[in-house]
């Protein structure tokens, strides 16, 4: 009874409510852990690979890092099994970091466009 009341206050669907109490199998954790280790090996391997330019190396390393972070957020932090509100919070926070980076890069890339020192 108490339990049901709580869920209605959280504005979660019954399904989402079930999901928030989802017990993740140990097997899933192990699989994700293995995937992370594999990606770690990939990061180290990519460091020694000559891809022509530093930029490409950087892009590859960052891509692998993002995949790793997504796996951790979705499974270790249980977002994958969580209510829509949790998804919104997680995605919103990510967008906010994106906002910071986007405006930051916009400044850096457009700095040399005018023929004025420092502009």
């Amino acid at each position, binding site marked *: 009874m108490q339990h049901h009341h709580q869920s209605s*206050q959280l504005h979660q669907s019954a399904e989402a409510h079930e999901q928030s109490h989802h017990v993740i199998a140990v097997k899933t954790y192990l699989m994700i852990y293995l995937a992370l280790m594999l990606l770690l090996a990939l990061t180290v391997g990519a460091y020694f690979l000559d891809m022509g330019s530093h930029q490409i190396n950087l892009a590859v390393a960052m891509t692998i890092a993002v995949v790793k972070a997504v796996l951790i957020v979705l499974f270790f932090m249980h977002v994958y099994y969580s209510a829509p509100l949790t998804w919104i919070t997680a995605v919103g926070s990510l967008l*906010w970091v994106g906002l910071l980076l986007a405006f930051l890069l*916009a*400044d850096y890339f457009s700095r040399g*466009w005018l023929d004025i020192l420092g502009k």
Partner: protein
Amino acid sequence: MSASAHARRDDGRPADYLSDTSVASWLLTTDHKRVGILYMLSVTLFFFVGGVIAGLMRLELMTPRGDVMSTPDAYNRMFTMHGVIMIFFFLVPAIPGVLGNFLLPLMIGARDLAFPKINLLSWYVYMIGGVMGVWILVYGGVDTGWTFYTPFSTMYSNTYVVTAAVAVFITGFSSILTGLNFIVTVHTMRAPGMTWFRLPLFVWSHYATALIMVLGTPVLAISVVLIGLERLFQFGIFDPKLGGDPILFQHLFWFYSHPAVYIMVLPGFAVISEIIPCFSRRPIFGYRFIAFASVAIAIFGFLVWGHHMFVSGQSMYAGAVFSILSFLVAIPSAIKVFNWTATLYKGSLRFDTPMLYAMGFMGLFTIGGLTGLMLASLAIDVHVHDTYFVVAHFHYIMVGGTTMAYLGGVHFWWPKITGRTYSELWGKLSALLVFVGFNLTFFPQFLLGYLGMPRRYFEYRPEFQVLNVMSTAGASILAVGFVLPLFYLLLSLRKAPDAGPNPWGATGLEWQVESPPTTHNFHEPVLVTCGPYMYSPEEAEREYASQHVHTA
């Protein structure tokens, strides 16, 4: 009810939240109302510490030559400590920590915040940062300005920069905890029937504030940590010699610190949105517009930070975009001011102390906001950047806005918080002194800045003296206006509670319980059946008729 009966007074009524007076009961409390009181005591203390420093600076600036402080460096430490204390230890926690903590659960019909222990933790975290701040002040201070700009802060300043960075870092977490608590509380603790559009606008504004606290403050924490790392271990992040970029620091810092302006002023809007309808006896005009304007400000506030960097080497194109976006954020602010004004229209106005503060807020915030638009224009900013024009502008927002709103809110809810009424005469006098003193202090600074007097110097050219003397004279009036409430509010505590549950005839759940409220806020489950601000025109007419009954 009888089974859950708690401590009761001799006359059988449930004890109010203030009745347990032991020190432990205060330091270990998880009651949102008591945490609010703890915050009130501490922000008041920090406000007066910051105020004394401001007074010393105004004394120094009475004459063109440096004569009050021993060295220019002492002056640098003064304005830095004034800024750090006022912003991080007064303005940011003042309204959310005191009034937000006290009122949010009462307003939504809840027993407490969602995480009462985290609420107490936020106060302790804040106090650790605050004590460190005072420690720094006693042992010589910091001279970087509250903005900690690199490379000065990381390479050259030989003051307690790292200690200050740690203090700011710690205090930031107090802010994050408060924000988190408010967000979860508004989502999960509303009483049955308290739908989103029945929430008082106070709650909407605090919800928006909480969003900024949670989204912005971590970036402040990151920027001060990076300062520490570069200062201690020579990480090359901001120092060009080590391959860093000083402007990167300004980006990171202002990504938090511009939205922080809204952390400070949105709670001010929260207070004003409650006072104006009550003393106009009219429902608030454009409820949904004001509610959504708060959220819009919280979001758009994050898109304008580059307006602090127009002349610091940021790309001109980024500057132009930030300038346009800064104009846009004026729209939701203006929506609020126009809606408050429309609420006054044909209202039956009463000019009690809280209303005087609210009216002062509306005028001063408008001046502060409009001069903000001037500063957001690229061309004007080149002229007035780093002058007293900027100082005047943000004091109109921070003192004319936030501090006036805080005082208005304290006077409005004082009968609720303490159960006592205060002297209206003294209240009105102090509100008037604050308004007059404030304008005399800061309006001359607009003129000084426009004439070209730079900020953050302890000497200036002799032709600026007349305006500076006016400003210092105003500061002394302002000081009297700020000290007076301390006396008459504290004196009101000496008498027995006399306020009654609802001295202003206000709507809102907090006015339906005793003053001061009992520990558990409500005696029975709350069921909300109507929206806020049900001040009807009929009621206004009734009041008007009863006032003039002798002519009938």
